[in-house]
């Protein structure tokens, strides 16, 4: 009965409802991230610059186009499953809706190739345009087997990137295609900077092209002489100046991914730290209040000392000397955070100790530990729980501050670390708002969520507001 009415009070308050909705969002995103991302994402992906080579650097999010900013969306086409497969190879086809601006560049990346016969696979890239014209842009086959090699022959273990629009062969291919299709005489070298414009437009005059928006089709044909031949990575990039939902940073990392990954990390840090903090604070408060005597005196003096210590400088000191492992960082934060709860709990316990219930327990011969664990703790339970929620944002904020100083755990990207990169590389002064604002807003969002929950819990659990 009682619990149900608590829930009703909780849900009746505005902050409680909003807080619950926000918490639901955070948990849902965290679950999504945990199921979709590998746990070693930080080391393997986020902090691995090679993986972000195909991404644009310092690109704003795509949706800035909605605000009238002219930007070309950066398109990365990772071709994984062929649309057609036959005994001689496979064909990858991708349809592209293209707008008014040509891409900045076109590139093709080939990952590890294994082949078994004398003849290596042949990769051919062609583009079909909205006007029905088609151009075979690029053809490549890796180095033939050498005398000292034996099958399977391996090529491009380190992926090789072909900058197609800057390639002189591609330029002459496009020049001769322009000659045959549009009767335009242009030399390959004159075309140098205009390959994307030529491919995604119609010539109006020499070196001037009118954009040709519409549906393009990109085809990559991989001819494999042996059915066992494989190609691990095949990526086509149409370079642009805007990328994704949240843009990218200086080394091209997709900020949306980092921001998403920050959710479970923040939730974990917040809850882990506040559980330890609350446990230590409540335990010491109960011991101090109930046992009295020298234990009480000792705990009180100890609390006095810890509460008078400036947290951040000592945290910096500890993390620098003992290492920026997330686990240590969380323990350090907890080590300084428990004092407030001990100070508040102690007088409550003193009051409870004099109550009739405890007196009855004592006369029945219950031990001190039993009374503390079974009778004092449950009565304070709701209050302690509310404190747990209340401590959560401060743990998240403290960790963010440490990360911002460059003391974050490098194996787990957090919002604080994203901001640190942004500040160190000068994103703030260059006005890269998409890099600076979202991580901070997410920190605020998470902290506010827990504050709202704590606010809604307060009238339910605060013993002073409740009739005991």
């Amino acid at each position, binding site marked *: 009965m009682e619990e149900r009415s608590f829930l009703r009070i909780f849900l009746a308050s505005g902050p409680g409802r909003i807080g619950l909705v926000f918490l639901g969002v955070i948990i849902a995103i965290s679950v999504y991230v945990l199921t979709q991302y590998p746990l070693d994402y930080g080391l393997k992906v986020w902090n691995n610059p090679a993986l972000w080579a195909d991404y644009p650097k310092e690109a704003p999010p795509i949706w800035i186009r909605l605000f009238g900013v002219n930007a070309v969306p950066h398109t990365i086409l990772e071709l994984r499953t062929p649309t057609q497969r036959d005994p001689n190879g496979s064909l990858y086809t991708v349809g592209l809706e293209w707008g008014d601006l040509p891409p900045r560049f076109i590139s093709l990346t080939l990952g590890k190739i294994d082949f078994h016969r004398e003849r290596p696979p042949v990769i051919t890239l062609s583009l079909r345009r909205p006007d029905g014209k088609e151009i075979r842009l690029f053809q490549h086959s890796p180095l033939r087997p050498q005398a000292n090699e034996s099958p399977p022959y391996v090529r491009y273990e380190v992926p090789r990137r072909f900058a197609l629009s800057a390639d002189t062969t591609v330029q002459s291919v496009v020049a001769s295609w322009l000659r045959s299709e549009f009767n335009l005489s242009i030399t390959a070298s004159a075309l140098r900077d205009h390959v994307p414009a030529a491919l995604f437009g119609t010539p109006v005059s020499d070196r001037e092209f009118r954009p040709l928006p519409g549906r393009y089709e990109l085809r990559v044909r991989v001819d494999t002489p042996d059915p066992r031949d494989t190609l691990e990575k095949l990526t086509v990039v149409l370079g642009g100046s805007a990328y994704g939902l949240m843009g990218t940073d200086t080394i091209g990392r997709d900020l949306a991914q980092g921001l998403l990954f920050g959710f479970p990390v923040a939730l974990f840090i917040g809850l882990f730290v506040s559980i330890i903090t609350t446990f230590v604070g409540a335990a010491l408060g109960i011991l101090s209040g109930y046992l009295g005597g020298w234990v009480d005196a000792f705990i009180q003096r100890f609390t006095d000392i810890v509460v008078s210590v400036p947290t951040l400088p*000592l945290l*910096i000191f500890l993390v620098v000397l003992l290492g920026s492992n997330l686990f240590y960082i969380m323990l350090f934060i907890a080590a300084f955070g428990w004092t407030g709860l001990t100070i508040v709990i102690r007088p409550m316990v003193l009051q409870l100790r004099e109550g009739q219930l405890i007196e009855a327990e004592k006369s029945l011969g219950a031990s001190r530990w039993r009374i503390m664990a079974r009778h004092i703790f449950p009565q304070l339970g709701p209050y302690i729980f509310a404190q747990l929620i209340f401590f959560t944002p401060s743990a998240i904020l403290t960790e963010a501050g440490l990360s911002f100083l460059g003391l974050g755990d490098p194996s787990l990207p957090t919002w604080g670390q994203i901001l640190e990169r942004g500040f160190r590389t000068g994103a703030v002064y260059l006005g890269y708002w998409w890099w600076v604002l979202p991580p901070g807003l997410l920190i605020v969002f998470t*902290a506010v969520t827990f504050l709202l929950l704590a606010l809604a819990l307060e009238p339910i659990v605060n013993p002073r507001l409740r009739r005991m």
Partner: protein
Amino acid sequence: MALLRLLAIRALTMGLVLVTVLFLMVLILGATGYSDLILRNIVREELRFIRQGLAETIRDPAELERALEKIRQDREILYGLDKPWYTRLPQMIVRVLTLDLGESRTLQTARGSRLVSEIILERLPNTILLFTTAWFVYVLIGIPLGVYLSTRVGGRIDRALSVFASVSYAVPTWWLALFMIMIFAISLRILPSGGMYSSPPPEGGLARFLDLAYHTILPVMTLVLAAVGPVIYSTRTLTLTTAQEDHVTYARAKGLDERAVMYRHILRVAAPPIVTGLLLGLTGTIAGGILTETVFNWRGMGRLYWDALRGTPDEAVIIGLTFIYTLIYVLARFVLEVLYLVLDPRVRY
């Protein structure tokens, strides 16, 4: 007398805090081998000087090396480097207390000194300047505004304020600083984005002072915005609770005018807990100060942390900074607690 006794107890507690922190620091320094590292650095510096002196008198390089080696061993025994680290705890405590921590890796003072103590002491006044300015501004805004709002409870401003107070708790000060830079320095271009003086700094005392004041606006504004919400809110709430007590009703019933009731019967009683609120806000202000200095390139101790953490951390500087911050914090706390004792006669008995 009772007051003096209480003051002595507070002073003792604060002294104990300082000693505990020092002991903890030195313990960690010893256990992680950093105290050895620092001492060896000091020995190396001394040897460099001695070598210069000896090279004048001893010409034979082999003999010079032998003599130096002998001196080195003597020095290491003198510093206790031949004994295990825990035997050197008292010595290390004195070193940290006097900031005698040798030289930094790369950091320098404006004059080019690499002594840790000189680097830190050069920055100390700047931190105190920023910190106290922000402190005064938010006390001067927060407390009067809180008192004023306690007479207007439930109004629109009052409700907006409670939202502002809780949101400002959730906003990291350093991120607010980044945000302020983006708005006032990058978009609007009306305030400098950081630093303490323009480069080159203007000539003349007044011009220099005005330049400094101009550079102080944005950091102080940030610190105040971050800290003032809770101050206003707690002042308002404490004043309000006191205003509902019986003695206030009695004072009004006596026919005292509102001003007298407010100053003598409400604020006089509510003042001590308001001071406690300021006390609790201290940690936040100091921590906020470290990160705010960093963001605004304010050449104080907070920014020094950031500089010392870049690349290979400069441990000696970080040790010194941590100690000085603890010292400042403990002193500021002590001042506030004394203020509390003076304001609240009830605790004296």
